[in-house]
């Protein structure tokens, strides 16, 4: 991740919060840590945020803006089955690499979100939903273009595929290593998508 030059003080604080949260976890971080990392005064923090919980939202926005695009399937609809499979599996590698260097953020999202509050849980559900929308867009297009099977429940399927892609985060969650390694898992997902979704030849 390349840190961007802060556009303004608020972004500067959000970026610092993102880095401190992902480095030490939400609970182990105080407002004092964030202002120290941002190199601003305590007083100026409270010009922008009322508390730690509020800067968390800004930190998540910051993280998504700088890292989100490569984690989504591309918005450009694929023209054939191979392009479709590439579009859907490319984020797996990006997610895995992202998770390997940001395991605290994954832990924050997977484990801590529900503990922090309901608003954050809903926020995470929305983020996952935006991934599902991008996936659905690709599937809908594939059905319309005729290279995917007709009659797919694309809404449910896209949620399911996003959930399945979380498998590449497993090592970052503290879970087992991926059986056979990342390339093998991606190849398996690709083969499953091909068999599961392709229109009959």
């Amino acid at each position, binding site marked *: 991740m390349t840190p961007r030059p802060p556009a303004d003080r608020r972004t500067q604080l959000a970026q610092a919060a993102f880095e401190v949260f992902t480095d030490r976890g939400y609970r182990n971080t105080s407002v004092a840590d964030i202002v120290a990392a941002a190199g601003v005064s305590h007083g100026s923090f409270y010009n922008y945020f009322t508390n730690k919980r509020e800067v968390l939202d800004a930190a998540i926005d910051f993280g998504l803006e700088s890292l989100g695009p490569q984690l989504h399937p591309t918005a450009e609809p694929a023209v054939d089955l191979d392009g479709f499979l590439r579009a859907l599996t490319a984020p797996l590698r990006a997610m895995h690499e992202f998770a390997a260097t940001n395991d605290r953020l994954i*832990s924050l999202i997977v484990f801590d979100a529900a*503990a922090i509050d309901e608003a954050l849980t809903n926020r995470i559900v929305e983020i996952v939903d935006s991934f599902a929308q991008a996936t659905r867009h690709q599937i809908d297009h594939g059905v319309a273009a005729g290279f995917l099977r007709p009659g797919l429940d694309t809404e*449910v399927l896209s949620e*399911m595929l996003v*959930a399945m892609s979380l498998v590449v985060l497993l090592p970052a969650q503290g879970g087992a290593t991926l059986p056979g390694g990342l390339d*093998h898992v991606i190849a398996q997902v690709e083969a*499953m998508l091909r068999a599961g*979704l392709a229109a009959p030849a």
Partner: protein
Amino acid sequence: MLTEHGYHDTTMADIAKHAGIGQGTLYRYVPSKRDLLDLVFDYSVEEVVGAAEPVLRVDEPLTTAAELIDRLDAAVEALTALFGRRPELLALVLVEASAIDEELKLRVLGLESTVVRMLARLCEDAQESGFLRADVDPQVCGLLVTKSLLPPGLREVLGRGDQQTRDRYRQATLDFFRHALLAAEPAS
């Protein structure tokens, strides 16, 4: 108590009172609220695994490809029935979320890997019987099928589950895996 009032708002005194025992007696069995949550968690895991396992692990070898899908379906149905009967098991997920620490994280991951192992075994059996595509890796398959159950599971935890939605997820999931995993029917 924990699922009704939440982890942080329940005290050991509340629990002892609810159980009709003295606090001293409670502490003799469970040293802390955290230990109690671990006990409840382990107990719930046993119930969940107990509901799914007999359906998935039948000693009879699979005789048709459709049976693999039927077993998956039956396991999901057994779980749905269990959660319908015992909604507090799902509520516990949220209780845990507010008491999460490293150790509980490991327990949750442990539960996930138990489910993965059960499904991987089922995939292995199916592959041996020739119903699963030969190039499917049963271990990866177990992982992916487990993850695919997350969205409907999350819906239930968030209290957004209803019969129609459940049926829809079930149909879409089974339809996908039927195509994605089963070996092509031999031409008859």
